[in-house]
């Protein structure tokens, strides 16, 4: 890595003692010698292991659940179903007033994705819990499922989630989050070329070294200590308090040393049910995802579909950009309504375009609920935007890097969501990339700056 201090040198003072110094991390020796303690490095006396019975169907009505055989399996201590969870229907963003509550801790009457948790088994050993889980008999009536976002949005599609009553999240702005800036149709009408293209991604896994999990210990003072690898301590504690209908002062969360998160540990999935198990058995409970659960049960990055329509002039100016983004939330909201609207605030990318129209939809389908991941609401948008930029440049016969200089935002430029640009540095990054990659551009672009035009 090289620090190129020549850029923006007049904006920095290099008079600091500790900041800017490549100090070795104080936690590195523990990490590389295996001495760092993670939440799972505990084997509490009497600790039970929790395993989930999961839906084998994408969408089905639960006719009946028979736990009698599992109940008598050797080592089984407790079996939990929906009726055991005090506030079974929840949504994590209710803490910031983004509802409705739309997800069950344990499925109640219906499953909406393959892998959904239906019954929790607590046993003396992981093996006993696994074996007993296999003995739970659930009678399902399979329902039609919908997997494709376009199909889900069509009239007459199976309704994935009755708490929404429709297969998209309803914002205060309607069926999508909207950004309107200038007159996009007039922009297309006056453009030399118009190009509309569609981009698609599929879900991906966070792939942390340490899978999601927690260990809960009931304490003598009627409190519960939850050792967890959540990315958000109070967010998880407060949601657990709601789900368990238990005052937050009875919950003590301990974490902060995590083997990779990447956004996969901001859902509140393992803690509430493990605390409930500890409460009902009076024993410590361990609930740790297997690698298979981490990959197919834990929320992935959402699949997204992005349709971009651009109007561009022969001289390289983009005069209009219309983006329609679809985020596949899967069966439940989790953080997806936030991610979709974060996308609305990110388009049209780091370019100054006078006419912009953005619609971003959060769509429900019968698949594993997606949620946050590194670059939430932005990563797939950037893929779509930057491939589109390449296509536009080639369409008008211009060098792709030079084309970006022509449209790059600078300090003071008004963005589509009506914030003036501050602290821009796109131009300088491209200038340095031009040098580093030996990708020459015209001298006038190398003389540009992100500072306000005319300044």
């Amino acid at each position, binding site marked *: 890595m090289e620090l190129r201090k020549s850029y923006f040198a007049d904006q920095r003072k290099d008079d600091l003692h500790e*900041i800017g110094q490549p100090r070795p991390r104080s936690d590195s020796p523990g990490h590389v010698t295996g001495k760092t303690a993670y939440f799972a490095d505990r084997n509490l006396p009497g600790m039970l292991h929790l395993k989930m019975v999961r839906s084998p169907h994408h969408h089905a009505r639960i006719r009946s659940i028979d736990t009698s055989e599992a109940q008598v399996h050797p080592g089984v201590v407790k079996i939990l179903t929906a009726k055991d969870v005090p506030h079974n229907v929840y949504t994590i963003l209710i803490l910031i007033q983004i509802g409705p509550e739309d997800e069950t801790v344990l499925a109640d009457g219906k499953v909406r994705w393959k892998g959904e948790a239906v019954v929790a088994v607590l046993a003396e050993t992981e093996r006993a819990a696994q074996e007993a889980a296999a003995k739970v008999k659930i009678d399902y009536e399979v329902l039609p499922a919908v997997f494709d976002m376009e199909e889900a949005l069509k009239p007459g599609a199976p309704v994935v989630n009755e708490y929404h009553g429709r297969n998209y999240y309803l914002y205060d702005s309607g069926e999508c989050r909207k950004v309107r800036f200038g007159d996009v149709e007039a922009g297309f009408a006056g453009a030399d070329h118009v190009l509309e293209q569609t981009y698609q991604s599929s879900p991906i896994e966070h792939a942390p070294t340490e899978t999601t999990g927690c260990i809960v210990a009931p304490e003598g003072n009627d409190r519960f200590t939850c050792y967890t690898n959540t990315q*958000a301590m109070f967010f998880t504690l407060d949601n657990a308090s709601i789900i368990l209908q238990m005052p937050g002062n009875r919950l003590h969360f301990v974490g902060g040393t995590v083997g990779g998160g990447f956004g996969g540990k901001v859902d509140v999935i393992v803690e509430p049910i493990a605390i409930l198990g500890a409460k009902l058995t009076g024993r410590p409970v361990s609930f740790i995802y297997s690698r298979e659960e981490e990959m197919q049960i834990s929320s992935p990055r959402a699949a997204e579909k992005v349709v971009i329509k651009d109007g561009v002039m022969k001289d390289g100016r983009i005069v209009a950009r219309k983006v329609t983004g679809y985020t596949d939330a899967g069966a439940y909201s989790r953080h997806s309504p936030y991610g979709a609207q974060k996308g609305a605030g990110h388009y049209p990318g780091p370019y100054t375009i006078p006419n912009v129209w953005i619609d971003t939809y959060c769509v429900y389908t019968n698949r594993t609920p997606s949620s946050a991941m590194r670059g939430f609401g932005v990563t797939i948008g950037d893929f779509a935007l930057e491939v589109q930029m390449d296509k536009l440049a080639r369409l008008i016969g211009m060098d*792709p890097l030079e084309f970006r200089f022509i449209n790059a935002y600078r300090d003071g430029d008004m963005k589509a969501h009506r914030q003036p640009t501050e602290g821009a540095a796109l131009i300088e990054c491209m200038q340095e990339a031009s040098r580093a990659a030996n990708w020459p551009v015209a001298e006038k672009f190398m003389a540009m700056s992100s500072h306000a035009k005319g300044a």
Partner: protein
Amino acid sequence: MAIRRGRGVAAINYPTGMNLGGDPTQALVHSTPTGNFMVTLSSVDLGQGMKQIMAQICAETIGVPTDRVVVDTADTDTGPHCMGTFASRGTHRAGNAVIQAAREARQVMLEVAAEELEVNASDLDTDGQGNILVKGAPQRSISIFDVALSAHFKRGRSISGRGMFLIPRSYPDKETGAMKPSTCYAHACTVAEVEVDDETGEVTVLTVKNVFEIGRALNPKMVEQQLVGGSWMGISHALYETTEPYYPDRDHGGTDFNQYLMPGPGDLAQTEIIVLERPSADGPFGAKGPGEMCANPQIPAVANAVFDAVGVRIDTLPITPERILRALKAQASN
């Protein structure tokens, strides 16, 4: 049939924080009797090194070496509220809270030192080595060790401070979408060079040259670990990863690392990282959030390089050999 070479470019920006939900983090700082400093938080270190960077921020603000600072974090009985570690917000939000708390603690520390030295607190400064000096007369000094002892046992002062950083929630306008979705923005430009085997569809990423503008590199070595790791993750996202290979079909999802593909050590490109620093107006010592954005520009850069190499557009992620071969076949039949 041949190995074809191409290169592609992409440029991006990235927002810091989650203003659309309200974005608070708090910090507490206090000294021990012998002049070490504790930072208490409930923020989570995911392995990126948050504890280390908070220690450096506290040390810089108080004016002591970093090894005099201990960070105690993520215990809800002791740590004040933090929204969580996501949205590239950790360094920016918690860092600002730590600065505010450390400033308050530093002020008390200087007041106690002023009483011991019989001067005004405003005439004092730290030397960054553990001592407090009279400005212009550095021979008059007192160690922070002695100041802390005095505060605890003689003067009855608590060398401590409270810090709070809150970005108030922004509500998007229903009609226009006017909103303030984040605070500062980081930037990047990546050039990727690939080889594509037009017989097998396999892509080899030869080089990735990344330029990142991240505000201020608070610890350059930690910035490097983050940016290199992010760059690899971007390549992996572009070419390998999916839990549903035939999305929206639900079948064929991987359940372990034999089935869920990621690049191995032999698949990694020669990676170059260049960092520019344009300090942000609102970040701790000018920092922005580089944590997420460093994995983004490689994806379109690789996609554009594949087109440059073989002349087909793969607009669906991941860009697998199967998709490339199908596109080449369609191109040949047109």
